[in-house]
């Protein structure tokens, strides 16, 4: 039987294992970004989360994606990374 060679149809990317940063011990004095992805009633849910986090001494910064159907624009991602220690994203309605 002759040797068979196949061409890789995929991305040829080796999976990059990235370790998540450890969780902060507490949120007091830290800035928590809340990202609304523009799904209906996401704001209602995030308002409540903000209230609970503020009670723990966290500063809240609110962000919103233009539409849930597209990834967050690069500028928005950079803004969040610059301003926040922690980010929470509301993924669906």
């Amino acid at each position, binding site marked *: *039987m002759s*040797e*068979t*060679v*196949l*061409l*890789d*149809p*995929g*991305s*040829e*990317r080796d999976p990059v294992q990235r370790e998540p940063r450890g969780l902060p011990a507490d949120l007091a004095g830290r800035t928590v970004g809340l990202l609304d992805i*523009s799904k209906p009633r996401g704001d209602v849910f995030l308002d409540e989360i903000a209230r609970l986090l503020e009670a723990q001494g966290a500063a809240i910064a609110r962000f919103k994606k233009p*539409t*849930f*159907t*597209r*990834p967050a624009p690069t500028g928005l991602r950079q803004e969040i990374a610059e301003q926040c220690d922690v980010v929470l994203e509301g993924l*669906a309605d």
Partner: protein
Amino acid sequence: MGAGNHYVVVTKRDCPTCQLIEPALAELADQGRLKVLNQDGAGFPALASAEVVDDHELDGSWALDVEIVPTLVCYQGEKEVGRTEGWERAAWRQLTGLDSLGDALPEFRPGCGSLTRDPAIAPRLQARHGGGGLTARRLTLAALEDAIETCYERGWSDGLPVVPPTPERVITMLSGTERDPGEILGDVPPDLVPVSIEKIAINAVMAGCRPEYLPVVIAAVEAALEEPFCMHGLLATTYFSGPMVVVSGPLARRIGMNAKGNALGQGNRANATIGRALQLVIRNVGGGRPGEVDRATLGNPGKYTFCFAEDEDPAWTSLSEDKGFSREQTTVTLFAADGVQGIVDQKAREPEPLCRSFAAGLRVVSHPKMVQAPDAFLVVSPEHARVFHEAGWSKQQVTERLHELLLIDGSELVQGAGGMAEGLPAKLGDRAFRKFRKGGLTLVRAGGGAGMFSAIIGGWGASGTIGSSPVTKEVRS
């Protein structure tokens, strides 16, 4: 020429000219400076005093880049200093310096094609010798490994068997386009991986495409990568939708696509494999797999493949024309589609009642109370299209009338109306709403000659700027 030179002649027993010139080869062999490569096995030509090499593997002929047999190549040392193809007595005499070579032969006979140029053989040789400009990672299988099973194990399949993408098959596939295999078209979501023509060709092989389908597959990938199509969201959504491919224009007929009976069904290779190739590109290059970034609650069978051709109607503008191209241009239109919902009307003989049937069917796309959310395609069958033609209605008139009939009173759409909780907020009850946004309803003709049935194909609940808009690209060779 002559003294000090040596010669290689490439022959094929199956070539009458090669057989004819055997006496001339014998004369040249007597000079002791001849080597013959024969392409179709041992025992030809019968020369006592020359080295005759059995080149049925064609590696020698490939190295010489021979197009025609016989070819006479003249060397000084290692360097080629001249060659002639076929039998042209004067040229052979000049190259060999033998003034009476082939005296008994005619002055001229054309040769035959070299086996290295045989379309069934050339890709194999190209692959064996590292040609074709292929750069994709190669995977060598163990002797007893089954290639189709390997494709499954690697996660390269949509669930059905794929054609193993060997270099030979990919080189053959690439003969379907003039574009450079290394050309990058853009980044495929969700992993945003750059996709080359070569990667598309590999996935087209796996889908079962023929090379002549490749330009259509490339155009479909180009359309999917256009920002307004929103391929990332379409893949990631919990909704049913996936990309539907509609091909409009002369190339669809040339490559044998089906626009007639069972156009939306199985059985036509081009329809089946072009749509599948697009899905495999998203799966394999982009990393879009169900259960991972593809979060579909139910999906739909069209996510294996959903592709058909328009049956361009002489009385109506074609889809290409509707999208700003000419009728002679072949285009691919992508639509974020769910499944097919049939609409039956066997009684209408006038446009108005037929439009009312269509509108009633279109009203329920996604939900009877959902407006301005999904787009829709209406695939009008020939028997339904005839009703409009006999009354002289253009496609634009039909579309316009459908939009009018689908202007719905808000009181029917609010939450609670009809006993259904789903609906608009109560405060919108005194307004009227279009079912589909402007430009959100597209008509094409397709289907068999018998049957007063048309097909409504609803779209993703997120249309237009917040989601996906249909995107049309011209097919380029």
